[in-house]
């Protein structure tokens, strides 16, 4: 189909101005082996707008961008650009046509000058050689267009990352781009730098460029975007004018409100709640790290599950990494069972009884080329040191006990962990730490990307552990899961701990996150 038939697009709540969209994607399906990454998704970009694509992890934002720029070839669906049906052969072809992308990491050559970076591959030539003067002049024009005061002859690497990012944008629009895609451009910028970026985005928007903006910072999206498309689990939830969509509605659109039947988990959590209280097993005082998370306090008692809620990028992961010494905090102290613990490396927290399962199971968790047995005993072995191997019998007992307790499949301790399903890999991680007999268990998204059965099993195990006296810190992107399991929920937003709820409900959490309140607040609502 072509864009001559605009009535075929879903009539969203946002009635459109009388201009034709510059990009129109319709009925996009993207299947990967075993995964439906996009399921009938549509997207419209109009000239002169900032359009945010919103969604949690796995919603399909990056896949959609990659389909648009030709990195992936959609399984089904049509894309029109400038009124013509297109299917780009790759990002280069998309850029030649006028769709430029700036990624989160700066993709430039830091050792070249600003001018060379802006015009790389399109250098003005004279007599077969690059005309340096003409190049600097041309670069100056492009920098002026976005109001960036910068010496074109200076080396790119001398400038801070934020400026490099702006140069990347100058490069992206230097090709006369009609569409500019900004994939999480603000994640490493401070407030002033973000303001500068937004100023440039507005300049380009007023020039008629359609800007597609992806960010996890809710307030930034509300500040800069005109319209938004919300995705969830690869499906289109809706297209809205930003001004007409409340933060609360956006959150419920992004997160969904699945009804769950895990009543047993709820009951176990209640039992655990009755036992909770007393001296905290884990206590953080003013723990923080510049650029990662504002200083926070946290107490977790034995038998208590404390959930961390917040959007992706809100600081959930950063918080637990500080608790474990995975990242070194630059302020505050951690006490485990009342004793201060060094956070220079994870070794002291581990010795004190803290266990941590990273959200990045493949990158920071499992050892894919080793067997279930080796993976399972690794933390115990690390504690004992190399000279005292875990005796064969103890090893077999541990493996036997935890493989049965967590129902790890296949039931073969010599199977390579890399060949296991995501759910079973997660169980191996859990088993590795339970084998160390910890008193605090920190789980970062233990149920992400695993099948429903394993999800329920893991939640049940967590509830049982808490009932038996374990202190648990639990992160999940699914608010239902957090509230069902937790006695208390810590709410984070934009890298600040904003609240602690003692009787958490999904509604309360969503209200808190949605509140437009730039000042960090600490309250104990009930």
């Amino acid at each position, binding site marked *: *189909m072509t864009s001559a038939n605009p009535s075929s697009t879903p009539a969203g709540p946002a009635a459109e101005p009388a201009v034709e969209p510059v990009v129109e994607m319709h009925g996009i399906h*993207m*299947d*990967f*082996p075993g995964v439906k990454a996009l399921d009938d998704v549509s997207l419209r970009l109009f000239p002169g707008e900032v359009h945010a694509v919103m969604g949690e992890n796995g919603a399909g934002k990056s896949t959609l961008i990659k389909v648009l720029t030709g990195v*992936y*070839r*959609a*399984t*089904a669906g*049509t894309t029109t*650009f400038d009124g*013509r*049906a*297109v*299917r*780009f*052969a790759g990002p280069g*072809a998309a850029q*030649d*046509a006028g769709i430029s992308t700036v990624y989160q990491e700066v993709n430039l050559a830091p050792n070249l000058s600003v001018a060379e970076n802006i015009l790389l591959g399109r250098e003005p030539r004279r007599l077969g050689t690059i005309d340096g003067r003409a190049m600097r002049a041309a670069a100056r024009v492009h920098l002026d267009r976005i109001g960036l005061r910068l010496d074109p002859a200076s080396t790119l690497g001398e400038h801070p990352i934020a400026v490099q990012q702006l140069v990347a944008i100058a490069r992206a629009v230097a090709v006369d781009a009609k569409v500019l895609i900004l994939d999480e451009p603000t994640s490493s910028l401070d407030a002033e730098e973000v303001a500068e970026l937004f100023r440039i985005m507005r300049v380009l928007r007023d020039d008629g460029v359609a800007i597609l903006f992806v960010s996890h910072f809710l307030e930034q999206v509300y500040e800069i975007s005109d319209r938004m498309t919300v995705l969830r689990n690869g499906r289109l939830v809706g297209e809205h004018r930003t001004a007409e969509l409340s933060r609360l509605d956006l959150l419920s659109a992004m997160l969904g409100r699945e009804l769950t039947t895990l009543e047993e988990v709820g009951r176990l959590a209640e039992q655990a709640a009755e036992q909770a209280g007393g001296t905290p097993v884990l206590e953080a005082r003013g723990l923080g790290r510049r650029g990662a998370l504002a200083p926070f306090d946290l107490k977790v008692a034995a038998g208590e599950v404390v959930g961390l809620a917040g959007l992706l990028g809100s600081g959930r992961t950063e918080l637990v990494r500080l608790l*474990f010494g*995975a990242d070194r905090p630059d302020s505050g102290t951690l006490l485990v069972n009342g004793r201060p613990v060094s956070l220079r*490396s*994870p*070794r002291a927290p*581990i010795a004190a009884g803290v266990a*941590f399962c*990273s959200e990045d199971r493949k*990158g*920071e*968790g*499992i*050892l*894919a*080329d*080793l*067997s279930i*047995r*080796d993976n399972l*005993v*690794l*933390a115990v*072995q*690390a*504690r*004992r*040191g*190399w*000279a*005292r*191997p*875990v005796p064969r019998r103890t*090893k077999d007992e541990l493996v036997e006990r935890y493989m049965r307790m967590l129902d790890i499949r296949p039931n*073969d301790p*010599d199977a*390579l962990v890399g*060949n296991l399903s995501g759910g079973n890999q997660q169980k191996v991680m859990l088993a*590795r730490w339970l084998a160390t007999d910890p008193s605090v268990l920190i789980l970062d998204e233990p149920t992400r990307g695993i099948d429903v059965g394993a999800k329920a099993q893991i939640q049940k195990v967590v509830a049982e552990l808490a009932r038996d006296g374990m202190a648990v810190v639990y992160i999940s992107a699914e608010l239902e899961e957090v509230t069902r399991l937790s006695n208390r929920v810590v709410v984070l937003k934009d890298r600040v701990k904003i609240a602690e709820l003692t009787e958490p409900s999904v509604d309360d959490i969503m209200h808190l996150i949605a509140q437009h309140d730039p000042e960090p607040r600490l309250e104990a609502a009930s």
Partner: protein
Amino acid sequence: MTSPDLPAPVERPAGASLGARVRGSRLVWPALALLLLLVGNTIASPSFLGVRLQDGHLYGSLVDILKNGAPIALIALGMTLVIATRGIDLSVGAVVAIAAAVTCTWIAGSPDPTSASAALTGMAVAIALCLVLGLWNGLLVSVLGIQPIIATLVLMTAGRGIAMLITDGQIITVNNESFSFVGSGFLLFPVAILLALVVFVVVALLSRRTALGLLVESVGINPEASRLAGLRSRTIIWTVYVFSAFCAGLAGLMISANVNAADANNAGLFIEMDAILAVVIGGTSLAGGRYSLVGTLLGALTIQTLTTTVYTVGIAPEVTLVFKAVVVIAVFLLQSARVRAAFARLGRRGGPTRPVPRTAPARPVAARPRPAERVSPS
């Protein structure tokens, strides 16, 4: 803990036939290459396999291969552990030269250059210095975070200079029976073989009987996951570089004792390449992780047999290196999963191979798109 010497049971269905298991093993290709070389040598010179006992010493081509291959095997053992941690040690050749230089200079400069005590202290000083050099490499890699190839390049180039300084630019010759014993002595077998064997057994035992194998492999497979599991990744990495330098130092003693001289320019020249080759031929991936000590041993013997073959078959010196390269490439091709898959297809179809179909998720398209865009079918 599974032994690092067992073949990786990747994608091996349970209860697979012995044939399938042998074919799936990482050790089968180096073993086959070694066997082929030995057979070729025997054809070229029928007395090749003969071993005879003379004056209580074993003699023969096979014994020579083992004896001359001992230094490479020793260095390759240390290299195996370094490579298992995703590292590499280019400085071993220079360490060989330093060990040789220190020992010979010490012996030559001692009051009685023929005494056993001069030989023993000289060797002890050399080994101690090599341990320090290993500490230096480990410091650069594990504490300062310099890439192993660069960090060890420092000592690779500087090391020969140090050896030259020690020997004052001369080739130092010594005449000390106790020292010669290390390189050319016999206890039925040549002493060099026995020394290498002892180190091999010790490392194998440490790998199997302690947790060292597991920890080294963990660090090599995923350093960040290992750190978060509480491993002292730094200490482990440091240790393997020290061990590698120790092996190189011991090999340096063997090499210089064999010729009763220290040649700072040529002792252990290019031996790091042979050692790395031995490790790779033995099936340990340069990407780190699982390692095979037996494989390394086979690899070292393959390389030494290759060198011996050059002499037995009488290949002209100017084509020696090319011949070596051809054999090494053949072994690598046999190890390559792609080449093996191609062979498997050839065997199945009995016909020409087709390129592997790409497992792209996209639906098939009728025609290749033009560079910029393509009108989609309506």
